[in-house]
Every structure is written in structure tokens, then in C-alpha cells.
């Protein structure tokens, strides 16, 4: 439907406001479930739904009005105390809110279709009609509001045993489920579309304005200096003034840089907020009892990181619920509390953000993993024998790996963990697993705060300048070339009782030069987790903060190169990718060289 300009504005305002309200309602409903007596909360939810209804009515969105109207009625009864709160009513309300979200999404996509409202409306009606004891149990329970985007057909196979199956209702459930599942998917897609806008604290924008004001003043001084210098020949005075100017502009630029980066920061809570709902639904589906604890939601990270980290986190949490947490009986038998605990936390550490997903489930079983790896042929028995427990845990990140016997709809297809690792790598992050059998596991993601600017070590290799991200550099050494040894055909350096595998960057990057003639060379030891590699360079130039510039689509996959940067003299310098170089298998022999 074509709208004129004002209407378009109204519509956009409606969509933004409603989306926000609905997100808040979602959160509030889950809190309400835990604290049903909280009248303040109930009132707030009621008011939000009422607002949405009002706006929808004003803009004449019929379907939306119908659903919100009924929902508002139920909420009204609840807050007046005419209805008592219980799980079943909660389910119906959640279902209704999902439907509302779906309808709003349709409006956003300008694709208003006739959605099957009757099921939900009927259930809302029946809640209104009966007191809570008589509310139709089978219907309420058999609408699992799954958040799984993939088809939830298989979910139908697990109805709760107390049901009296009614063919007509079941068919309706299928339709409802699909529309709800579709709704979840479209709201997931909607999140993806919302990438283009950003909410920024007004104070940050003001700070930025102030800095820009300072910059304008410095620019004026610079012009002034330029004009003055044209007339005079007093180099000393000029140099002095110029020096001061450079200092001030450097400072202001750094400040500006910090502030713009800060604007891109979003609290990780925006991702974390999805989880209570996901965990609740999943727990109900799996018949497990779970308590989700969230810490550090206010920790901020770059918007692009937030966008990318959502899916991997969801997968990891699903994994924890599905694989790691035992059923209630198993837990009691093991002496654990009945209710499983998953802790999702985020915190800053230096220039990184550490996100951790911890569970008190059964832990990873190295035996099982080894067996599976052997079976799949991804490792040989000898390799396994040499692996540390940590390395065995790392095997689960290999594609196609899954120790689950039955592939459920949720997980077990074995595509998840390696995708998670890839996504984390794409963000220049690392992922680690800690686990203890019987006690639980913890998955730790370490991500850099900013993607665009890094501290780097500038090096020179036979005349060409390269940049090595400082975050990967462990130490640097100046060595004589004759100290290099050879083990199994590879060059190594003896470093404090271990053998450090070496990689001559001159060879790797095909640079012309007479490196082998030099007496002294520098070795930059880089490391990712426990792996080490020594990069051989000609000279160290110093430490510098550089802005990463992408090489563009055409050169994106050059092996060993992560990107480029522009130096002070305008030339382009390439940024080395230590992780790729290390993973290139050069570190294999680190294990084998035991003692020197």
C-alpha cells in the first residue's frame, strides 16, 4: 500500500516504538513468570500492550488490533486479580505476543497477509472464559512456541503424555507452530535488517561535537600559521608553532577516534536478552529444568561484533542445554541439584571482551571425543596419543564432528561447532573450552573490542614493510643466523629448552633479498593459545597503532595476509595474519621436539 510522506513517518514511528515495546514486554513476561506477584511489572506489561493496541487501532491494522485487544483483556483480568497467574496462561500470552510480533513484522515488510489468528484468539478467549483450573490443558501445553528457525515438524513427535489427542486441534497446532516458527524466524531476520541504524547516547554525540569544535579551532590555527609563514622566513618560530600544533592535533584526533569508536559500542545485553526466552523454551522442550544466570550485560562491544556473535552464542547455549545438562533424574543421582545452571557472562579484559558460557552439566568426555575422532578418521591413533586434553577438546570444532547419536532438530548434526569457531575467527577472536567430567564445562570466547584499529609491530623484510598485530606477539629476539637448527627438514630455534619452529617470511612472501647472507636476524615469536611460531624478519621498526584497511573483495583471501594499512608516508603496508600462518601446520613439530 502506498503511503504519502507523513503517513510513512507515522508508520516508521509506530514500527520503532512497537518493536521496542514488544521486546520489553517479552523480557518482562519472563521476569513475571518468576515473580508472579509483581504488580508493577504486570501493570507495565498491560500498559505496553494497551499502547500497541491504541497505535494499531489508529493506523487501522485490524489483525493487530484483534490480537492485542484480547491480550489486553487477559492482562487486565490478571492485574485486577480476577484471574490467577499460572504457566498455562503464561504460554497463551507468550503465544499472543509472538503473534503480535509476527504481525508487526508483516507490516514492516509491507506484506500483510491473513495470518491464522483464530487458534490464539480462541485460547485467549478460553482463558478469559474459564478460571485457571479449567483452562484447556491440552491445547495450552501443545503449543510449544519454538524459537527454532528450521522447520519444527519433528517437535510434533514429542507431545506431553497428559494430552488427550484431538485430531482437529492437532492440525491447528501444526499451523500455529509453523506460523509461530516463521514468526521467530522473521523476527530473527528482522534483527539482521536492523543493522543499519544505531542508537547512540546523546551525551556521546555531544562529546563528539565538542571534540570537533576543538578540531575546528586547530584548523584555524593551522591556516593562520600557514599565512604567517608565507610572509616570514623565521624557520625556528615556525617550527616551534608547528610542533605545538602537531601535538594538539594528535591529541584531538586520538580523542575523536576514541569517541567515534565508543559510538559504535553497544552493550552485549542486546544479544543476551534473547536468551532467557530461548532457554525457557528449550528447557521445556527437553524436559530439563534450567536456571539461566546472566552477568555483565552492560559490557560494551562494537556493533559489528554484536551482530555476528549472536548466532554462535545461541548455538553454544543450545549445545549446553542439549548435550551438557543431564536430565533431572541423572542430576539427582549424581548428587547435583535438580535444576541445572547455565551462566552467561561478559567482561572486559584489556582490549578484549571475554564472553563465557558455563554449565554445571556432565562435562566433556575425552574418551568419547577421541573415539569419535578416530572413527571419523580425522586423527590417527598416534596423533591422539600425543594430544593433551585441551587438544582433544579442540577436536569438537572440526567440521562434521558430533558425539550425539541421535540427530535431534536442535543439535547433533555436527555443523554447529565449526561454524561457531569460524565466526569467532572472523571476528579475530579465539574460543577455548575448559571442562571437567561430572562437574561441567565452560566455553570462553575472547574477542577484540575494536576491529578496525590495532596495535602493531612494524617490521621490515628485505626492504618491504609489514605489520604484525601486537596482540599475537609474545616476544622478539635478535639472533645469529647460525643459531638456527634443522629438525625434520624444518628450521627451528632453540628457545629456553624448547624448539621454536621458524618461518622465514621472506620465503613465505616471496620477497627478493639476500637474507641468508645476513649475520643477524630478528625473530618475532607469535602465538595463538598454546601454539608458537617464530617469524623471521630482517629488522624491527617499532610499535605503531594502525587502522586496518580491507584489501577489498578481490584480494580478501591472500594466504597469510589479514589486511593492509596506510603508513604515515602514504604507502601501503600489509598486515600479517599470524593465526593463519600458525595454523598452516608449521607448528606440528613443536610437539615432537621434546628435549634438546
Amino acid at each position, binding site marked *: 500500500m502506498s503511503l504519502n510522506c507523513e503517513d510513512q513517518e507515522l508508520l516508521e514511528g509506530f514500527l520503532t516504538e512497537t518493536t521496542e515495546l514488544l521486546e520489553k514486554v517479552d523480557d518482562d513476561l519472563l521476569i513475571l513468570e518468576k515473580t508472579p506477584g509483581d504488580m508493577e511489572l504486570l501493570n507495565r506489561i498491560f500498559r505496553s500492550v494497551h499502547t500497541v493496541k491504541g497505535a494499531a487501532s489508529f493506523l487501522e491494522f485490524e489483525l493487530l488490533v484483534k490480537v492485542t485487544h484480547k491480550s489486553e483483556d487477559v492482562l487486565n483480568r490478571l492485574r485486577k486479580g480476577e484471574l490467577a497467574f499460572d504457566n498455562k496462561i503464561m504460554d497463551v500470552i507468550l503465544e499472543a505476543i509472538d503473534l503480535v510480533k509476527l504481525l508487526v513484522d508483516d507490516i514492516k515488510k509491507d506484506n500483510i497477509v491473513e495470518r491464522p489468528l483464530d487458534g490464539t484468539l480462541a485460547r485467549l478467549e478460553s482463558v478469559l472464559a474459564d478460571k485457571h483450573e479449567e483452562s484447556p490443558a491440552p491445547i495450552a501445553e501443545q503449543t510449544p512456541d519454538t524459537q527454532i528457525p528450521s522447520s519444527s515438524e519433528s517437535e510434533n513427535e514429542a507431545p506431553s503424555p497428559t494430552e488427550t489427542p484431538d485430531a482437529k486441534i492437532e492440525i491447528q497446532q501444526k499451523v500455529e507452530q509453523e506460523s509461530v516458527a516463521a514468526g521467530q524466524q522473521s523476527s530473527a531476520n528482522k534483527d539482521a535488517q536492523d543493522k543499519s541504524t544505531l542508537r547512540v547516547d546523546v551525551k556521546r554525540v555531544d562529546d563528539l561535537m565538542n571534540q570537533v569544535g576543538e578540531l575546528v579551532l586547530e584548523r584555524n590555527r593551522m591556516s593562520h600559521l600557514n599565512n604567517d609563514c608565507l610572509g616570514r622566513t623565521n624557520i625556528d618560530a615556525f617550527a616551534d608553532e608547528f610542533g605545538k600544533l602537531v601535538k594538539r592535533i594528535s591529541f584531538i584526533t586520538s580523542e575523536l577516534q576514541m569517541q567515534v569508536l565508543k559510538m559504535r559500542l553497544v552493550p552485549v545485553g542486546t544479544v543476551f536478552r534473547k536468551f532467557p526466552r530461548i532457554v525457557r523454551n528449550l528447557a521445556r522442550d527437553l524436559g530439563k529444568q534450567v536456571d539461566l544466570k546472566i552477568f555483565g550485560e552492560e559490557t560494551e562491544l562494537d556493533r559489528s561484533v554484536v551482530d555476528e556473535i549472536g548466532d554462535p552464542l545461541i548455538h553454544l547455549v543450545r549445545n549446553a542445554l542439549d548435550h551438557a545438562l543431564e536430565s533431572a533424574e541423572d542430576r539427582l543421582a549424581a548428587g547435583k541439584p535438580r535444576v541445572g545452571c547455565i551462566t552467561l557472562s561478559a567482561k572486559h579484559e584489556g582490549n578484549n571482551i571475554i564472553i563465557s558460557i558455563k554449565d554445571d552439566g556432565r562435562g566433556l568426555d575425552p574418551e568419547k571425543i577421541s573415539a569419535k575422532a578416530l572413527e571419523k578418521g580425522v586423527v590417527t591413533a598416534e596423533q591422539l596419543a600425543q594430544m593433551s586434553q585441551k587438544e582433544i577438546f579442540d577436536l569438537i570444532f572440526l567440521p562434521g564432528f558430533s558425539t550425539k547419536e541421535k540427530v535431534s532438530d536442535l543439535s547433533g548434526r555436527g555443523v554447529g561447532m565449526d561454524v561457531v569457531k569460524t565466526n569467532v575467527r572472523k571476528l579475530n577472536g579465539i574460543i577455548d573450552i575448559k571442562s571437567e567430567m561430572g562437574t561441567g564445562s565452560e566455553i570462553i570466547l575472547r574477542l577484540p573490542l575494536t576491529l578496525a584499529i590495532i596495535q602493531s609491530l612494524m617490521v621490515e623484510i628485505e626492504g*618491504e614493510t609489514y605489520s604484525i598485530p601486537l596482540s599475537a606477539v609474545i616476544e622478539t629476539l635478535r639472533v645469529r643466523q647460525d643459531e638456527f637448527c634443522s629438525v625434520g627438514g624444518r628450521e627451528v630455534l632453540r628457545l629456553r629448552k624448547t624448539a621454536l619452529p621458524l618461518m622465514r617470511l621472506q620465503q*613465505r*612472501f*616471496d*620477497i627478493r633479498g639476500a637474507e641468508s647472507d645476513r649475520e643477524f636476524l630478528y625473530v618475532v615469536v607469535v602465538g595463538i593459545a598454546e601454539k608458537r611460531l617464530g617469524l623471521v624478519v630482517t629488522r624491527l621498526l617499532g610499535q605503531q597503532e594502525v587502522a586496518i*584497511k*580491507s*584489501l*577489498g*573483495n*578481490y*584480494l*580478501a*583471501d*591472500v*594466504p*597469510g*595476509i589479514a589486511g*593492509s594499512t*596506510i603508513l604515515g608516508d*602514504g*604507502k*601501503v*603496508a*600489509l598486515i600479517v595474519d599470524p593465526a593463519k600462518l600458525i595454523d598452516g601446520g608449521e607448528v606440528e613439530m613443536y610437539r615432537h621436539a621434546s628435549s634438546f
Partner: protein
Amino acid sequence: MNTAAATSNSVEMKEERIQLVSFKIGNEEHGINVLKVREIIRMSNITRVPNTAGYIEGVINLRGKVIPIISLRMKFNLPEAENDSRTRIIVMDMDNELMGFIVDSVAEVIRIALSEIQPPPPIVTGGIDQECISGVINHDDRLLVLLNLEKMFSLEERQTFADII
């Protein structure tokens, strides 16, 4: 009446002109659609990128953007030559990505009518893929080979610019 209008339309279409930037590589003269050309700059410092195809000279800094530079000489399998004061880099917009092409010299911008474009003869030059030749033009007694540089890099080739040697 109608036929007159129709014929004048088709005459107009034939008379539709496009503008080409003509440049030389070795002895050959080529032309590309000026609308695709962003700018023409002098040679600047090219930073080599390791492990890429031979014809990729490297990257340069174009006012804060890092763009890849291709040597058309190498791509066309012509013998290497020294850069001189006339060597230029033609920066083109290829599917929203900027790319620079090194040419020996840039001559002029010429206007030609679409009708002047003749289909490419079967064998024009050994080095260039037939696909990127969209035609030849006889202009001022010179033969200009019309290039469509976008076709030069097929999608897979573009995606695998990085050779693993």
C-alpha cells in the same frame, strides 16, 4: 507518419554515441567506456602483495582506500616494459569495487557512435581473452579494440585472485 517516426527513432539509436577513453599498451590501442572510469592517475608506489597471480602488481593507497592494481601488459601476456613518464593507472569501478589498471599511455577521450562498432574478428590479439573484446572500431585510420574489462575477470577468477603458489 508512424514509419517516419519509427525510422527516425532507429536512426537516433544508431547515432547514439558513447565516449571511450583510448589508451595504449605496447603497440595496441584500446578503448573502454568512459562511464566506468573513475579516474586516471600517475604511477605511484605499489605495495606488492605476495601469493597472488602474476598480473596483480599489488595495491596502492588511493586517498585512503586500498585498491588492487593490475598490469594489463602481464594479463595480455605481452613482454614486460619499463614504466615511463607516460605510464598511467586507470582506476575503474568494477561492481562497486575499485581497481586500477596499468597502461602505457592514455591518449584521449573519443566519441563514437554505436554504429561504428564492428564485431571483433576471430583472432585479434593472442593475449586477450576473446570475451573481453566487445568490438573493434576504426577511428582515424587506427584500429581500436574495445574492451570490456569486467568480463576479463570471470567471477571465479576474481574470487581466486590469490594464487597459492
